């Protein structure tokens, strides 16, 4: 037993053991075949019926129904679902058995054709070969090979990606003499005919000199044919080669084992050519010489022993292909090649060099520095544009304006022209984005100087006056406006002001202004002082100076910004269009002169090609002049579009310096989201600035109050005047703004003032020499609001008229009012209640009033500061926010 158990352990058991027989149990009778039934997974009998496979189970348990019986699936209206109606394929009608392994559409994982190796479809190959033979023109299928994009398997593709080429072997590159593989298509064609050894033997005819360091791909190894022998032919038997038989190359390859290699290649290449002239005949070993065959020499040709090598020689190094049986030619050639490296026809007069020429001397590359990194990175180019940018930034920094810009991402800080500059585009000719662009280096330097000097000067001037209010005001905010002014002064330096006379009504002042501008142009430092009237008070001078700045600024803004944005139709072609007519009406200037000389004709005439609409021609009963053109109108050409906003981003501050506050109120209800935050930023800044100005003014006023009584009541009066209409904020501000921006008001009116009555009122104001009396009248809301104030104010005005000092020039005083008014008008709501009573009261009450006001002002200042902080956080909604804030302020205060 032990032995048997041992044996059992050694044995390998296959299959399942039969159940052990219990004693007393009878052997079961095997189930007869007719009673064996096939059941499917669900235990159903499988019978042969069904549509597709003769599917074993059709329907539901071999009924025609479904699980649900005949109840159709719930009706779904195809009206909405029409689009996603699925197309039913045959699979939808199949049972799951059909899709199983033995079904008609088995779903299992198979290698796709991409991954399958070629050898699999041997049947196909065979069929192809057969077709090639049988075809009327033998070898036509070869062209299929050539032409048809034979599918490349993934493996081949991968190999190719790794650098493999067809005909090469696989493996690491070898340093040895090349074994050139000829990827000869012809070989492929006749591949079945040629024994592989021969095709290889034909190679290496010309072995050339190869440099040492060249590696070669390994030789392609012919895979060992592992086809099992299935037939009963003798070993090495080859049936009649149909190609040879048909093409009439009678067994030549078989017999001439070592023919001339050249001859062989000839054979290879020119097989067809050879056979062309020959008659077709069936020749071959098996058949013997055909009756039509003339030469029968081959048949009985014997392979003589003399053709074999009889002597063992040492093998060629690294050449495993040819052993001692290598053909003679090959060997001799090898030897020859070692002697002479150049084979070819040597020209007359030339002889082969005995030794190789010395190779060209090579110089080693320069030593790289240690910290060299072989990556090039672009340094920001400090071109003129960016420099300007820096300069501007520096300027803005000093004015405290920077934060509005720096909060923007730097990419957007660049404008299109700068970007273009970086990209190396040619600069477009157009209105220059900034005046600074034009400034020379020297001018810029001077500008800075002027600024610095004036700052100091201002500080000195301000210091004594500062003290009372300095606790409320940060110093930087105080001299901000002056820096600002200086900055603008610099910009103004080359803005010609020949045609701009903001103070035309006061020739003396105009003269002063002109000299002021002139001196700014020349970059003089103490420009402001000496061009102002010497017999004016200091405060007046300050006012006038500011006025001049503002005027000049406005001129500047109107000059560059607006003129660049709005073109005069008569002289300018609209350049902002994307498509412009191909033919531009040419230069106006010569035409103008021609018109002046009354030389009409060619000079004044432009002739363009113009394509009328076809229908228009039809309606006019005129044949279409351009029947086959689709163009209508003037032929257009694409042109660069440069957006208006390019200009805005740069020069925006100029437009909105004083406009913005007004605009903010005006537009806050219309456009909730300002497109350009910078605009609003500036407005905020401007308010800030004005605050400081107002501070300054109030200081000066208090001083003046002490010194000379007359001007003080006047300013007071105008303040109350302005204060009496706080609810009508926008209109009031409009008015103020208009008065202030007197120089370029027409422009602003044209652009910004929307309603017509505002316009009319402002024009009225303008026509008036004195804005004061017209204020209540011009402002309908004001008039409506308070009749009493009207009369009272006019009373006071009468007073004012009498109290004005004769020595004092009238206009400057008047000029300054709007500023004050602007300052106090909308923002001091308590004046609404208190101002009315105050107006009728005597002057001594006004002192109190002023205090009151100042309190408010400080409050406001604080709020501004707060807002400023907020601004930095979210500067997008700043404008809106700001407006709301001010409104809230006023409402809460009142």
């Amino acid at each position, binding site marked *: 037993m032990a032995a048997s158990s041992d044996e059992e352990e050694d044995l390998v058991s296959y299959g399942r053991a039969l159940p052990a027989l219990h004693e007393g149990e009878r052997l079961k009778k095997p189930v007869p075949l007719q009673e064996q039934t096939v059941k499917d997974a669900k235990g159903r009998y499988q019978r042969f019926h069904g549509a597709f496979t003769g599917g074993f189970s059709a329907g539901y348990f071999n009924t025609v129904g479904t699980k649900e019986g005949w109840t159709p699936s719930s009706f779904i209206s195809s009206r909405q679902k029409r689009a996603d109606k699925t197309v039913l394929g045959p699979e939808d009608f199949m049972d799951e058995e059909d899709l199983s392994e033995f079904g008609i559409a088995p779903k299992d994982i198979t290698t796709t054709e991409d991954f399958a190796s070629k050898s699999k479809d041997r049947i196909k190959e065979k069929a192809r070969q057969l077709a090639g033979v049988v075809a009327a023109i033998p070898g036509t299928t070869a062209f299929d090979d050539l032409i048809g994009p034979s599918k490349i398997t993934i493996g081949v593709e991968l190999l190719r990606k790794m650098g493999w080429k067809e005909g090469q072997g696989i493996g690491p590159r070898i340093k040895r003499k090349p074994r050139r593989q000829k990827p000869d298509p012809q070989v492929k064609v006749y591949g079945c005919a040629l024994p592989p050894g021969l095709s290889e033997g034909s190679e290496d005819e010309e072995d050339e000199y190869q440099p040492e360091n060249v590696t070669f791909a390994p030789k392609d190894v012919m895979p060992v044919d592992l086809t099992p022998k299935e037939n009963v032919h003798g070993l090495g038997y080859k049936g009649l080669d149909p190609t040879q038989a048909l093409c009439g190359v009678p067994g030549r390859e078989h017999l001439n084992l070592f023919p001339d290699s050249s001859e062989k290649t000839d054979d290879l290449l020119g097989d067809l050519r050879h056979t062309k002239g020959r008659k077709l005949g069936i020749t071959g070993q098996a058949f013997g010489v055909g009756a039509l065959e003339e030469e029968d020499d081959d048949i009985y040709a014997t392979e003589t022993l003399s053709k074999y090598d009889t002597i063992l020689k040492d093998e060629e190094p690294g050449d495993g292909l040819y052993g001692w049986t290598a053909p003679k030619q090959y060997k001799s050639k090898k030897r020859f090649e070692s002697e002479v490296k150049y084979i070819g026809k040597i020209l007359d007069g030339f002889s082969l060099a005995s030794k190789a020429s010395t190779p060209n001397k090579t110089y080693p590359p320069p030593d790289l520095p240690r910290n060299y990194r072989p990556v090039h990175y672009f340094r920001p180019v400090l071109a003129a544009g960016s420099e300007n940018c820096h300069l501007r930034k520096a300027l803005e920094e000093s004015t405290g304006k920077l934060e509005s810009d720096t909060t923007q991402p730097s990419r957007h800080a660049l404008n299109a022209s700068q970007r273009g500059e970086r990209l190396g585009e040619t600069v477009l000719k157009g209105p220059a984005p900034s005046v600074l662009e034009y400034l020379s280096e020297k001018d810029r330097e001077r500008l800075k100087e002027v600024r610095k000097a004036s700052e100091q000067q201002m500080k000195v001037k301000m210091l004594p006056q500062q003290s009372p209010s300095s606790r409320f005001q940060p110093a930087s905010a105080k001299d901000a406006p002056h820096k600002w002014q200086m900055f603008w002064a610099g910009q103004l330096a080359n803005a010609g002001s020949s045609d701009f006379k903001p103070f035309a009504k006061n020739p003396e002042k105009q003269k002063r202004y002109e000299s002021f501008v002139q001196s700014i142009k020349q970059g003089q430092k103490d420009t402001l002082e000496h061009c102002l009237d010497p017999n004016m008070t200091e405060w007046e001078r300050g006012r006038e100076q500011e006025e001049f700045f503002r005027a000049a600024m406005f001129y500047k803004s109107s000059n560059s910004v607006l003129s660049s944005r709005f073109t005069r*139709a*008569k002289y300018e*072609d*609209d350049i902002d269009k994307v498509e412009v*007519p191909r033919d531009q*009406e040419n230069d*106006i200037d010569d*035409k*103008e002169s*021609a*018109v*002046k000389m*009354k030389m*009409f*004709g*060619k000079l*004044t*005439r*432009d*002739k*363009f*090609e*113009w*394509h*009328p*609409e076809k*229908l*228009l*021609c039809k*309606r*006019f*009963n*005129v*044949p*279409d*002049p*351009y029947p086959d053109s689709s163009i*209508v*109108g*003037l032929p257009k050409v694409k042109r660069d579009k440069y957006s208006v906003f390019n200009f805005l981003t740069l020069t925006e501050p100029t437009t909105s310096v004083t406009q913005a506050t007004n605009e903010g109120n005006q537009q806050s209800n219309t456009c909730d989201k300002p497109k350009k935050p910078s605009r609003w930023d500036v407005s905020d800044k401007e308010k800030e600035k004005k605050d400081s100005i107002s501070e300054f003014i109030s200081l000066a006023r208090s001083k003046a109050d002490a010194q000379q009584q007359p001007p003080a009541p006047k300013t007071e009066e105008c303040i109350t005047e302005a204060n009496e209409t706080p609810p009508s904020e926008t209109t009031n501000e409009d008015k103020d703004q208009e008065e202030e921006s007197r120089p370029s008001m027409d422009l602003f009116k044209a652009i910004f003032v929307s309603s017509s009555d505002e316009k009319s009122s402002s024009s009225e104001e303008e026509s008036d020499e004195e804005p004061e009396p017209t204020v209540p009248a011009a402002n309908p809301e004001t008039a409506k609001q308070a009749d009493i104030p009207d009369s009272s104010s006019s009373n006071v005005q009468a007073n004012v008229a009498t109290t004005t000092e004769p020595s004092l020039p009238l206009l400057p005083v008047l000029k300054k009012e709007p500023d004050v008014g602007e300052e106090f008008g909308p923002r001091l709501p308590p004046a609404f209640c208190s101002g009315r009573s105050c107006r009728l009261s005597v002057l001594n009450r006004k002192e109190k009033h002023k205090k009151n006001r100042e309190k408010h002002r400080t409050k406001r200042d604080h709020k501004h500061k707060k807002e400023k902080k907020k601004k930095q956080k979210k500067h997008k909604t700043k404008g809106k926010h700001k407006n709301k804030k001010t409104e809230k302020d006023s409402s809460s205060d009142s």
Partner: protein
Amino acid sequence: DGNYCVTGGSDKTLKLWNPYKGTLLRSYLGHGYEVLDAAGSFDNSQLCSGSADKTVALWDVATGQAVRKFRGHAGKVNSVQFNEEATVIVSGSIDSSVRCWDCRSRRPEPVQVLDEAKDGVSSVKVSDHEILAGSVDGRVRRYDLRAGELYSDYVGSPVTCVCFTKDGQCVLVASLASPLRLLDKDTGEMLGEYCGHRSSACRLDCVLSERDAHVGCASEDGAVYLWDLVEGSLALRLPVGQGAVQALAFHPTRPVLLAATGGTLQLWDTGDTAGDTGG
């Protein structure tokens, strides 16, 4: 028109008159603002008018109804004109475009928009194959449909009125603050110059007499000036009224001149006052 005349008024109506009798035949209501220009078709069956409400209207004379209203101009329509067969209305507007409206189809948009002008188009005239447009940008543009070309003549000052001569060879151009000029249509050369009238701000009409013998032009001093076309000398000065002469029309065949000023329309017949009608 010959027999009738049409006036467009600031009372938003279009009125059809018999100028000889001075009777109002019909008035056409429908414009939203004052009517700036009107023209009649060749068969007197239709009228077209351009208004400050930016529309061009096509009226049926008999029924007094507005057949079509063409909207598309962005500004006041300064001038309207039918083509010869009354199939197209050409309108020039202050929005610096000339639009050609199709009267036949129901298309709401213009057949073609001629937007070459750089400023408002003040005057449009149409011949059988040409559209003449005078613009405030100081150019007279002639669109030649037959040749497919656009001729642009520069005259230097805002053009107020243009018109073809009857022979179609020349173009008469009136522009602000400058004499009337007679330009050769083909070359653009100036053939004649007529000065003496006053034209500084208003849009004034100029006309040519029925046989191209005289050039007429309205003036701001309340007179109509007539010059001899060839000699260029002032032939006649008709004192029409006090204010500027707003419109001027010459009878196509007879020497009758129609002038509108200050709410009245006056008909002048070869120098003799024939009658006037209250507007």
